[in-house]
């Protein structure tokens, strides 16, 4: 048989490609369940890491089942809100906002031709009072996303970021460098303003007592300017959309704060008394 004739070549390549496509489609379908379970456990462990229940490495060692169990144990409430701060729906316990869902909401926040409807922003409230919200945006080579946990007074309790294909050793530090993620802790984003959060050169300075200044700035990653800028844009877009909700959810705290201050004041008096004696 002449294997070099045009008809043979066309038929041959067509058959090969169809067979390969069929094999891939079959394998992809049959492994989908497992892959989604893995992705779900990974996403949940990222949220738990952001809310400071442990380190990402701890959760990786625990295995999928233990991570899901821990989540079920710690989560108090999960629901979606709209950018004006009103609640739009509930999120079931077994439902997770995977990066692909975040991508869709990212389009919805930004509007434009890719938007599919009004943004529905997920909020996860844990039993220790921490609110975890996701952020999503474009890094240098691919998407970057992450989870930011807020204390009741809207200061940041923790953060965890992930990426698809940032440069190892540079941009990938947003995920791999715990020191970078720790920089977020304690900072206070200016919710409701046009620039909610900044990742800048020389951010997060130390004051005279060598304590970190609480503001809405942290230090960018050296050698990863584009990733830092992409992450900053992602945080600003998402926290901008969450501002109304986060600001409206604070009054509860204002009642508690004076009580704490009083306690401290009382303690302070006692100590001064003991000193006098």
């Amino acid at each position, binding site marked *: 048989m002449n294997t070099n004739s045009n008809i043979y070549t066309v038929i*041959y390549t067509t058959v090969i490609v169809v067979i390969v496509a069929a094999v891939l489609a079959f394998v992809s379908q049959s*492994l989908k369940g497992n892959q989604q379970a893995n992705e779900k456990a990974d996403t949940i462990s990222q949220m738990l890491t952001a809310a400071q229940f442990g380190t990402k490495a701890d959760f990786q060692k625990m295995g999928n089942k233990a991570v899901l169990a821990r989540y079920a144990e710690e989560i108090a409430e999960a629901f979606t809100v709209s950018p004006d701060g009103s609640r739009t729906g509930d999120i079931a316990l077994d439902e997770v906002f995977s990066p692909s869902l975040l991508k869709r909401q990212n389009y919805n926040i930004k509007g434009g031709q890719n938007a599919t409807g009004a943004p529905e922003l997920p909020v996860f409230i844990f039993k220790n009072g921490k609110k975890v919200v996701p952020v999503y945006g474009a890094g240098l080579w691919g998407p970057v996303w992450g989870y930011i946990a807020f204390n009741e007074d809207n200061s940041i309790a923790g953060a965890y970021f992930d990426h698809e294909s940032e440069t*190892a050793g540079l941009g990938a530090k947003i995920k791999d460098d715990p020191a970078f993620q720790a920089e977020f802790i304690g900072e206070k984003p200016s919710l409701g303003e046009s620039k909610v959060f900044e990742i800048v050169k020389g951010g997060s300075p130390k004051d005279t007592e060598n304590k970190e200044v609480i503001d809405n700035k942290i230090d960018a990653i050296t050698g990863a300017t584009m990733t830092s800028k992409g992450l900053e844009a992602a945080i600003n877009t998402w926290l901008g959309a969450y501002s109304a909700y986060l600001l409206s959810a604070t009054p509860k705290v204002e009642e508690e704060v004076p009580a704490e201050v009083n306690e401290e004041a009382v303690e302070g008096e006692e100590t001064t008394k003991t000193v006098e004696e």
Partner: protein
Amino acid sequence: MNAKLKETLLNPIFKNNPITVLVLGICSSLAVTVTMKGALVMALSVIVVTGVSSLILSLLRNTIPSRVRIIVQLVVVAMMVILVDQVLKSFEATYAIDKQLSVYIGLIITNCIVMGRIEAFALGNKPWPSFLDGVANGAGYGMILLIVAFFRELLGSGTLFGFDILNRFGYVPNNLVILPPFALILLGCIVWVQRSIQKDLQEK
């Protein structure tokens, strides 16, 4: 024939190693050798891809139209790489490693060893020797990967397969070892050792 098969299997491991002698697949060997776990998974993935795609293409070798043979090779190799990636993603134990290796599993498609061995060997030989040739070349590649990863993880993190080895003795991990250039330095040392053992590789 048996001696020839043995040669097919053993040559790529040392005498004709794809990385140190043919200098193929350098790029990925710099990228995935920070930890032993990553290197091991990468090595096994490459062994499976080179072995099975050599086998498939050797079975097809008499039917492939020579004008489109590179395309047919690419389709088969790409299929194998995607299969490996999908399988790694679906197991709990390998999901995190697959994520860590990220693009490099997909980039096995462009690893010169795979296409090189198919062009040079599988298209002209029977399926069984082709399969062995693929596996052996993958193993030769994997061996170098593991040697480099051994030093990089031990000196760079003080651990092996994640277990603490040096840190308990107060070792301070060397950051330079983690960076890609050090992999190149180690590769150079391996080539040096091999060339001083195997004198016929030395240029006059």
